[in-house]
């Protein structure tokens, strides 16, 4: 006779609560570099992520200090940013202008780029490290309420 394991407990709402709370915390923490403005943080983040998303899986740029050079960054057309971060145009464009004025985003001919030099600033490296630690903390909290990451101790 086949013995089936008991069904896993339904922990979906607990997981949603943990992840959402951690994300709000993370965003608040990361927004320190953006005058504590979470929206500016998300717009800045969307630009750099989409500049470099094609590098996911490229082992040359996996380590904290192996920052991709400007030459490999893919400029982000404003329309693509609007699709990635849907919100009223007047708000989005206000923030883009502010990021350009701060010098952390450049308007290249084919789109927006966060230049490599921005990532070498000490607070940016610290922020990257801190974000990694937040993710480790979130994983621990999720496991605490029974979320399975699919690898069991032997």
């Amino acid at each position, binding site marked *: 006779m086949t013995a089936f394991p008991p069904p896993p*407990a*339904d*922990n*979906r*709402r*607990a*997981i*949603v*609560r*943990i*992840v*959402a*709370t951690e*994300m*709000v915390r993370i965003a*608040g923490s990361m*927004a320190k570099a953006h*005058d*504590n*403005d*979470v*929206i*500016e943080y*998300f717009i800045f*983040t*969307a630009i750099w*992520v*989409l500049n470099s*998303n094609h*590098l*996911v*899986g490229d082992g040359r*740029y*996996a*380590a*904290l*200090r*192996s920052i991709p050079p400007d030459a490999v960054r893919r400029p982000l057309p404003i329309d693509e940013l609007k*699709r990635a*971060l*849907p919100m*009223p145009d007047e*708000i989005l464009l206000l923030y883009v202008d502010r990021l350009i004025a701060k010098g952390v985003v450049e308007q290249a001919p084919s789109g927006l780029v966060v230049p490599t030099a921005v990532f070498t600033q000490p607070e940016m490296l610290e922020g*990257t490290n801190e*974000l*990694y630690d937040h*993710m*480790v903390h979130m*994983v*621990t909290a*999720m*496991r*605490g*309420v*029974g*979320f399975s*990451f*699919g690898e*069991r*101790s032997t």
Partner: protein
Amino acid sequence: MTTRGAGASDNRRAVLRAGTFEILKSLRAFSRLHEGDMFALLVFTTIWSANGEHLIGDERYTSLHTIGPDSTSAPITDEALQRAIGAPAAVVAGYVDKFIGLGVVERVSGGLIIPGAVFTLPDMMDAANEFYDRMLSLVASLRTVGFSFGRDA
């Protein structure tokens, strides 16, 4: 326990690149609950997560259908919401007013709450379920770039 083990290769930048991309994708998907406005989604999420943060670890409210009663919601003040978002106060207040007008946020003694009834709406239940599934995608994506989740008990 989840750690970056001694001798493990440094994959922090790759993890953040992959993880953040997945999170942005999820935010974009869930903004459909707010007429495709991600700013509205962030304000709404900040309110309900503050309302229920103290319930993390409370086993009575862990399953998809066990929504905490309104009496267990911890209201968030307008000032705390403003501090949490950090965007211009008038913009955040505009979203709050809109939510109150739609009946998805209530102003109670002590601040703002999202009533439990809102979470029982079919779109919201579907979103909670989808959120869980997207976490599984995030896990898979992070594993691909070498993030170690340690081992389940």
